[in-house]
């Protein structure tokens, strides 16, 4: 049971980071200047990458955690 919970939590955190990272990286609406097309928050693409890593890391959690 703990294994499944840990796996689901890892996947959820990963998905949330992916959504937050992508939303803060990608401009919404027409881009009128380079400022608008830049990520809204520094390290937002990094959050996306960490989220993707966590989603795949959940497979390790599922197999290693007792």
């Amino acid at each position, binding site marked *: 049971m703990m294994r499944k919970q840990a796996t689901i939590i890892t996947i959820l955190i990963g998905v949330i980071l992916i959504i937050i990272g992508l939303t803060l*990286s990608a401009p919404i609406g027409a881009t009128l200047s380079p400022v608008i*097309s830049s*990520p809204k928050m520094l390290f937002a*693409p990094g959050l996306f*990458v960490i989220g*993707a890593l966590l989603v*795949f*890391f959940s497979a*390790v959690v599922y*197999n290693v955690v007792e």
Partner: protein
Amino acid sequence: MQTISALVHMLKLEKPISRMAELLTVISIMLGAMTILADLGQPIRGIVNLFLYARPMSPFFGTFSLVISGYLFASLVFLYIAGRKDAAIMAAKTNNWFYRAWAVGYKDTSEVRERHERTLWYLAIAIIPLLITAHSTLGFIFGIQAGRPGWFSALQAPGFVILAGVSGIGLLILIAVALRRQLNLKNRISDDAIIWLGNFQLVLLAGYLYFIIVEILTSRYAGHHHEIRVSDALLFGEFSSLFWLTIVLFAVSFIILFAQFLRRNYSIPMIVLTAIFVNLGAIIKRYLIVVPSQTLGNLLPPQVLIPQAG
């Protein structure tokens, strides 16, 4: 190559091929990333800026975030989980710290083995769309450049995916046959596994040859003069010898593999020969994808800039 590994798990084919494919995938991605970083003037700054300022609208974002983070890490996880049982066996035999760390917590029970197989199955399903997306974004780097005749094409993305499969399988065949011979593993890596890889390569090669024909026909029949200039250089001009060499290499490989398939009479040395041919052809083709359009694919005539003092 991770496609092969994923398909091997999904189709329950031979595990040694899968393990080689997993390892080749990890090494290839790392080398690919290092090649790009070596091309940057300031690689450390490039890595740092990627995580700070990357824009999802750029195909490079897909290449780096999906390839490096998604594809590479997923391949590492795949290799880690698939190799835990073997690592546990090696740890028991050798007491090596690396194998002990790899196999930490592993118990060889039917429940654990079943859990590992189930995880690998779902990972395989998750990795296949990821690798298609990753390779497609590589193709989009060229394919969405409207100002570059020769590059601007809807076929660049699928072409990159298929060419990666063709050359990846070719390399896997070479490594599998070499290891089989050097380590005397004929009972572990059977002829059927090599033949299966050869047939898979045949299918992908047929697809890629079709793409080449469609691209050439489209540019020759209806391309405007900028496209024709690039196409002329490929077919008749300065790049023609390399282009026709590529076509010969791919066509001969296709004929050999197809003849074997039709006659159901397979020869491992001939499959190895086709693997060498397709890898040579793929290297030359990648050169031909980049250089002709980069040097001749201009919508504006070349301009000479003369710096002026004052």
